């Protein structure tokens, strides 16, 4: 049985596992369970108060974007992925991912409710700020096709819509847009600001890395199982979606950092976005489009290495709750 399908009575038994990668990702995701209230934000409030207006704007802007969009990912999963996937191991993972998106949203809520931020403005931003609203509309367009125009997953067009939605929420929203946001959020910690918020972001990035792995596996599996999708026209359409997303992100970043802050400006972030977009393109089998270098070499420190925590001073985010070993 292929991974795509809508039979309600199919996929009720986990064994035998057909897609081991989905099962492995589920196990790891469960071990990664964390809660925002493990992080205390007292120090960060002190930092936030002494930051410049432009810095505070950038943080508020980011949170305003992430908060609703974590839940938007859930809609994409609930309406566009879960109903059309038939492997129970994939359903298990998706259920955990959806809880994680909820947990991320609650984390940004936690920050929003703790930091001295104009909440009304923050909650309204995803509608009021055109560059943010445009990104949201782009996503919504693909989710709508999965709900309002009921698709038939057995047809080529139905499968294409499935892949389009995956590309939109997983590759673009989670894999490019979120990732550039993470870089900006973590940049504050490199200057010894918002360290605890940085710990929350560490956890979120850890989760999102799994989401991306799952999405990438799912896309490649669907392509592999459905030769009718392997056409140059469809490939070109997908690539175009990503290029368009980069362009949208550039406008958004100009609003995120209209001036500049220490170590960052909009052009710098945009170069990072292009670096990420090339990586996603290559992972999908395309040639890189932008061929730029990663300007944020410091991400080696912020994200790429094992972290040794001086644990009287900082939250250790490397621990795993070990569901398997404790049973």
């Amino acid at each position, binding site marked *: 049985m292929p991974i795509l399908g809508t039979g309600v009575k199919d996929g009720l038994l986990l064994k035998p596992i057909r897609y081991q*990668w989905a099962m492995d990702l589920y196990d*790891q995701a469960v*071990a*990664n369970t964390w*809660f925002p*209230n*493990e992080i205390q934000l*007292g*120090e960060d409030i*002190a930092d936030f108060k002494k930051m410049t207006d432009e810095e505070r704007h950038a943080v508020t802007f980011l949170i305003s974007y992430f908060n609703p969009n974590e839940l938007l990912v859930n809609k994409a999963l609930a309406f566009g992925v879960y109903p059309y996937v038939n492997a129970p191991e994939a359903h298990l993972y998706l259920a955990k991912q959806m809880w994680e998106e909820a947990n991320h949203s609650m984390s940004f809520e936690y920050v929003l409710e703790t930091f001295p931020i104009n909440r009304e403005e923050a909650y309204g931003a995803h509608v009021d700020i055109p560059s943010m609203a445009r990104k949201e509309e782009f996503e919504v367009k693909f989710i709508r096709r999965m709900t309002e125009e009921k698709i038939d997953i057995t047809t080529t067009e139905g499968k294409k819509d499935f892949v389009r939605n995956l590309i939109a929420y997983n590759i673009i929203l989670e894999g490019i847009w979120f990732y550039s946001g993470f*870089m900006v959020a973590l940049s504050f910690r490199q200057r*010894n600001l918002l*360290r605890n918020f*940085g710990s929350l972001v*560490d956890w979120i990035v850890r989760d*999102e*890395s799994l989401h*991306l792995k799952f999405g*990438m*596996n799912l896309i*490649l*599996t669907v*392509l*592999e*199982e459905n030769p009718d999708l*392997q*056409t*140059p026209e*469809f*490939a070109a359409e997908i690539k175009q979606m990503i290029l368009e997303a980069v362009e949208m992100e550039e406008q958004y970043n100009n609003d995120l950092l209209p001036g*500049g802050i*220490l*170590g*960052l*400006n909009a052009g710098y972030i945009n*170069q990072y976005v292009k670096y990420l977009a090339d*990586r996603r393109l290559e*992972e*999908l*089998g*395309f*040639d890189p489009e932008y061929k730029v270098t990663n300007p944020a070499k410091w*991400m*080696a*420190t912020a*994200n*790429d*290495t*094992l*972290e*040794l*925590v*001086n*644990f*009287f001073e*900082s939250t250790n985010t490397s621990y*795993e709750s*070990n569901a398997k*070993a*404790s049973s």
Partner: protein
Amino acid sequence: MAITVVKRDGTREPYDANKINLAIEKAAAGLDENITWVTQIASELELTLFDGITTQQLDEAVIQVALQNVKDDPEFDTVAARLLLKTIYKRVLGDYETDAELLQLHRSKFRAYVERGVAEGLLDPRFPALFDLDRLAEALTPAHDSLLKYIGLVTLNNRYGIKARNGEPLEVPQYFWMRIAMGLSLNEARATDVAIEFYETMSALDYLAAGSTLVNAGTKFPQLSNCFVMEMHDDIEHIAKSVRDVMWITKGTGGIGLSVTKLRAQGSPIRSNNTVSTGPIPFMHTIDSVLRAVSRGGKKFGALCFYMENWHMDFPEFLDLRQNSGDPYRRTRTANTAVWISDEFMKRVQHDEPWYLFDPLEVSDLNELYGKAFSERYAFYAAEAEAGRIHMFKKIAARAQFKDILMSLQTTSHPWLTWKDTINLRAINNNTGTIHLSNLCTEICLPQDIDNIAVCNLASINLSRHLQADGTFNWATIERSARLAVRQLDNLIDITMSSVPEADHANINNRAIGLGMMGFTDVVERLGISYESEAAYDLIDEVAEHISYYAIQESIDLAKERGSYPNFAGSRWSQGMVPFDTIDLAEKDRGVPITVSRKTRLDWAALREQVKGGMRNATLMAIAPTASIGLVAGTTPGFDPQFSQIFSRATSNGKFLEVNRNLVDALRQHGLWEKVREQVLRSQGDIQGIAEIPDEIKAVYKTSFQLSPYSFIEVAARAQKWIDQSISRNMYLETREVSDMIDIYSAAWEKGVKTTYYLHMKPRHQAEQSTVKVNKAEEIVGKKGFGAVAAETPGTSAPVPTGATARRGFGGLGA
């Protein structure tokens, strides 16, 4: 876009690339390849600029750009440190051009620094009268600043450096060292001479005082002691008093060990109001909140570790204190936990016997007993329970509880395992009562009671600075450091103020100190030997023996000069015993061999005679974690292995990249570093899978998770022979099998290790890396294969791993 820079006075000037280039060039002087670095740093800096950047931001941005290149070459760390030093000099001392001018400024402004500090009520008001400030100024050696790595300089400057009331920084690093030296020689007859001696050795990083001392020495409120060890008694007055004491000690930056074993269990009767107790957990939560409230402006939280014996009825809930879920009022998110384990328990685990939990109210003497006496009494209570004569008890399998402890340790890194009988049976000061707990970092072993809050005062020798080019230790400088450090710590006891009378009382009557050491891994790497080799074990054995010997000698000399500590009579010192002699005592009581080598090298017989005559200090040694001062010293902390060959450190001053310079040097000698550095980063500092690297280098440079966990135990066990207190023994594990953990922690007990500390588990999953090439599709190897389409379509860029077919996605579809 034209970029203008906002100067300190608010005026703007156009961004001057030339000026920046000159500054970078100067900071890179004398280092390899500095010409390419100047252009590289400058061009990377320009990426980050924006119109209206301030000069201060510009300074910081240049440093950040230099730092982000450390992953490629650790020399960039030197560039960053020099750039930061320059900004500190300019802010504190003003503008200068040459090194000679800088030296002159250091000297000429020293008196004004001291006088301003005193006038603002920051520095000790006795300074100007007690010291010859001109002589001290002459002794200042700014050249020592070049010993500091970037993270060390940041730590020193941010954490320890003093600021004026208006926020202006008052200290350059050498003023800081001199202030510490002065603050620890106030009681000396020749205060200036002694201060210069302390200054010279500490500023050369030969040994360092511990954190609280570095924060407070020489200030108007010198709370200089590092460790406080106390217990809560089973009455509401004393609980309230303990909360009060925790507040005061935390305000003074002291770390706290707090035993809650004596508190009656949940559901235990309270006579006065005919109700029942809530047990210790809610009181621990209260203390946990206190630690966050008294937190130096939210920047440094209080640090405390709760201790409980594992026969306490509420111990199962104690294990949950650090869980990340559940009722937050029954959790301690800030405080740490440690379990105080008896030999009786370890034996019951080995023999798979039952274990009983009791309410302390019914077994009130258990907490005072240790060794055989504890075992006998415990067996008596167990029999009473079986006979139905104990009101509250629970019977479980000892092994089941040991597994619960280890599972909790694996998932939350708590509780730390500490062995009360090894500690008590080896205690030199068993004349002053039972040791009920260790401290925050599990290296202190001192008796305390309701009238005495045990206090310890720490310093650590930097082994790395005493290793000579020929690969031998300079025992003469080690002796000098050990003796000076002991004298300095003894001075500290008469200078410190704690705001807790029970602590001052214990401090004066015991004069307990803990000289430690750091840099062990740094040293073995430079010697080209593996951490897990017999050579390394013998080395730590030898070094610990020497340092212990010198420290005891100095304490003997100090006793002659200043008198013995008041509780000396009746101590094991007074009976002619040295720490090594207590191993046999512990072994005899335990009835099971303590499996550690008994090799000795020095003339201990002579020393045994001398200690009988008097000792200045109740204890002399303890190996602290040195997590912060190790950064200042620029070496590996305590006995810690190399966490990984490249890793990040999260501290209260931010996140820093650490690249093992010893490895980089070794690889450079083979012409390999540039070739393999991206692979080293990709593998997160694990070099074992990199084909180009020779096996002899791989053997020396294992990550903490690759070394045998038994090597951590062996290193601790060898050092523990000589150390009267204990060792903050960090542990690192890759295995998640509880049966492996049982073996490892049982081995620690068998080898006579007194305490273990934090357990680092190797993370199984890491976020997607940003700065190295990533292509997840290459890792995804499909069973069915998508290769058919991909194979027909040349021109795709993704390389295919050999022997497997990568999925190609849209590859070759006209993209």
